[in-house]
C-alpha cells in the first residue's frame, strides 16, 4: 500500500451525519532543519453530538492537527500540504481567509491548553467577550452585546457574571479563566469544538468540573467535540470514540469501550499499561523503552516498530494498512490479530 493513498476512514458509516470529515490531512512544518511531518495523513469523521478523543505522546502532532482544522498553523513554517477538511460539506481548506474568519467561532471553535495564552492581560473579560461577539455581529449595539456576554458566561456557570465581566484575567483563577475561554468559544454555538488539552493546566477537582461543563454544553447544543489529550483518564471520562496518534498518524481508532477493553495496536496497549491506577495497586508499570522517531526523518515501515516488542521484519519494511477489527474499530498494525491481550 502506498503511503500517499488516503488512509480511509474507519467509520465509513457514522452514527449521525458527519459535520466534520477529515481526509488524508497533511500538515508539514518547514524548518531550517528539515521538514517536520507533524500531521502525515490523518482521516476521521465526526458526527454532531459526538466526542472524539485524540491521545498521543508529546510531539506526536496533536496540536498541529487541531490547529490545521481551524487553519491556524504557525506562519510561515506550517503548511497544510494535502487532504481535505470538510465542514458541513464545504472544504475549509478552500476558503479565503475572510470566509475562514466567519467560519471560525460560528461553525468551528477552539479551546487551548493554557487560558493564559488565549486571554489578553490588558483587557477586561467583558471587552474580550464583546470583541469575540463583534467579529460575527458587527452592528450589535452595546446593550445587546452586554446581554450576550452575560448569557455566554451563564452558559459556562460563571457565578455573578455581571461582576466578572469587569474583571481582568489576572484577577481570576485558572479554572475561571478556562471557563471564560470556553464561553468565548461557545458564544456562537459552533457545531464543532476543538479542545486542545483543555484541562492540563487545571487542578484535579477543577478539571473534573470543567469536563462536566463540556459535557453539559454538548447536551444542550449538540456540539461535536474533539478532545485532545495525553491522558487516558480524560478520554475515559468524556469520549465516545478514540483515536490514538503516533508520530503524525493515527494508529488505532475505535469506540472508547473497545479501545480500553480490546486495544489492538501494541502502542495503545503499552500506553494503557504504563498508567498507574487509582483504583488498584499495581506492582510494576509497563514502560515503553526508547523514543518516538523524529518527524523530520521518519522510517519507511511502521513508525512504532523500533520500540515495539512484537515487531517483525515486515513491520520495518512496510507501513501497515488499516486492519478492521469490527465495523467501527481498526488498527494499523501487521500483527494486530496475534498480539496477546492482556499482555502476559
Amino acid at each position: 500500500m502506498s503511503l500517499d493513498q488516503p488512509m480511509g476512514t474507519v467509520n465509513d458509516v457514522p452514527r449521525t451525519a458527519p459535520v466534520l470529515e477529515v481526509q488524508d490531512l497533511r500538515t508539514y512544518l518547514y524548518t531550517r532543519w528539515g521538514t517536520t511531518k507533524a500531521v502525515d495523513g490523518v482521516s476521521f469523521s465526526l458526527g454532531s453530538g459526538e466526542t472524539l478523543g485524540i491521545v498521543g505522546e508529546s510531539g506526536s502532532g496533536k496540536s498541529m492537527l487541531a490547529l490545521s482544522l481551524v487553519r491556524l498553523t504557525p506562519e510561515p513554517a506550517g503548511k497544510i500540504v494535502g487532504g481535505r477538511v470538510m465542514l458541513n460539506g464545504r472544504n475549509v481548506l478552500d476558503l479565503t481567509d475572510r470566509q475562514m474568519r466567519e467560519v471560525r467561532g460560528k461553525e468551528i471553535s477552539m479551546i487551548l491548553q493554557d487560558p493564559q495564552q488565549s486571554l489578553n492581560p490588558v483587557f477586561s473579560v467583558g471587552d474580550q467577550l464583546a470583541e469575540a461577539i463583534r467579529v460575527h455581529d458587527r452592528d450589535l449595539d452595546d446593550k445587546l452585546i452586554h446581554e450576550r456576554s452575560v448569557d455566554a458566561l451563564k452558559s459556562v456557570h460563571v457565578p455573578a457574571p455581571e461582576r466578572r465581566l469587569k474583571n481582568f484575567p489576572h484577577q481570576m483563577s485558572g479554572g475561571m479563566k478556562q471557563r471564560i475561554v470556553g464561553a468565548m468559544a461557545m458564544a456562537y454555538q459552533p457545531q464543532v469544538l476543538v479542545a486542545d488539552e483543555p484541562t492540563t493546566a487545571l487542578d484535579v477537582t477543577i478539571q473534573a468540573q470543567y469536563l462536566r461543563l463540556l459535557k453539559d454544553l454538548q447536551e444542550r447544543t449538540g456540539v461535536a467535540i474533539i478532545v485532545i489529550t495525553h491522558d487516558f483518564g480524560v478520554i475515559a471520562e468524556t469520549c465516545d470514540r478514540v483515536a490514538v496518534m503516533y508520530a503524525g498518524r493515527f494508529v488505532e481508532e475505535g469506540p472508547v469501550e473497545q479501545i480500553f477493553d480490546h486495544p489492538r495496536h501494541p502502542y495503545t496497549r503499552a500506553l494503557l499499561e504504563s498508567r498507574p491506577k487509582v483504583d488498584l495497586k499495581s506492582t510494576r508499570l509497563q514502560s515503553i523503552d526508547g523514543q518516538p522517531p523524529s518527524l523530520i526523518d521518519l522510517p519507511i515501515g511502521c513508525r512504532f516498530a523500533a520500540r515495539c516488542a512484537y515487531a517483525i521484519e515486515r513491520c520495518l519494511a512496510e507501513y501497515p494498512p488499516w486492519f478492521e477489527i469490527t465495523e467501527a474499530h481498526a488498527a494499523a498494525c501487521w500483527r494486530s490479530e496475534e498480539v496477546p491481550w492482556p499482555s502476559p
Partner: protein
Amino acid sequence: MAEPLMVVESLSKHYPVSEGQYGGRTVGYVKAVDGVSFTIEKGRTLALVGESGCGKTTTARLVLRLRTPTGGTVKLEERDVHQLSGADLKWFRTSVQAVFQDPWASLSPRMRVRDIVAEPLVANHRVSKDEVRERVGVTLEKVGMQRWQGDLYPHEFSGGQRQRVALASALITEPRLLVLDEPVSALDVSVQAQVMNLLKDLQAELGTAFLLISHDLATVRYVADHVAVMYMGSIVESGSVDQIFETPRHPYTRGLFDAALPTHPRNRTEKLEIKGEMPSPLNPPTGCRFRTRCPQVMSICETVPETIEVAQGHRVACHLFTPEWS
C-alpha cells in the same frame, strides 16, 4: 513499624504580603503552611497530595532548609534541621537531596551533566578528581544512563533523561532522604512509568526514604507507603496508602477521589462532591478551611477541628469524627 527518620512538628510558613516600594507595609499573611506534622520512616515513602497552592512545595522547601519556618521544627534523626551549622550542616546536605518538578528548569543550562551530577559531592567532601569521575560514572549507570553522557549538556537530553540526571545528582551522596517535588508530572505518560519504576528500584536497592509530592493520586498509590492529604496549608487526613485509598474519611479526600479521572469509561464520574474553587489563601475561611466547599458542612465547622486518630495511624481533621458528632 520502621524507625522514624524525619519528624516534622507543627511546621508553619507565613509569607507576608506587603504593599509599596522597598518592602513597605505588611498588609497580611499568606499561611502557605500552617501547623503541619508528619513523620517519614527510614526507607519508606510518604506522599503529600493536594491541589495547586495548598503548600506542598513550601513544605518541601522548609524540609530542605531552603526557607526558614515561621514556626515548628523539622528534625532529621533527632537533630533540628534549622539549627544546624558547620559540619552538621554538611551532614544534612549529604543526607537529604531533592528532585524538582520541571526537568527543563532544574538543571543549570550552562553546566555539563558531569558537573551537575558531581555538585553535591564536591560541595561537601574533599574528593580527588579521579574519585569524582568514578562516582559520577557509577551513579549515572545506576540511573540507567551511560558514562559518556556525562560530557553532554542538559539540553541534549529528553525530559525523562533529564529527570534521570537530576536523580543521579541527588543520589551521588547516598542520601537517607530524597524529596521528590512532582518528579514525573512534567513527563509523558510512557516516560513517567520509566521514572517511577526507577524510583521504586532505587528505593529497594539503596533503602532511601522518599518524601513524594504529587497531585496525582494514581502516582501516589503506586509509589507511596504513607499518604498525607493537604488542603490550604494543613494536613486534613493522613494514614497508610491502604487506609487512605480503601477507606478515605475526610470529605476532601473523598472529593479528590471522586474527581480523579476514571481508568475505564465504565467508571465515569457519577457526581462531583466538591463544588467551586479553593478560596483565596490571603483570606481563608475561619474554622475548618474546607467548609466553603464541603458537601457535609455543619454549623460546628466554624470552629477548627481537632485531629482524631480513627484507626491505628489513620488521622483525620474533621468534625464528622469528633466523638460528640459521630
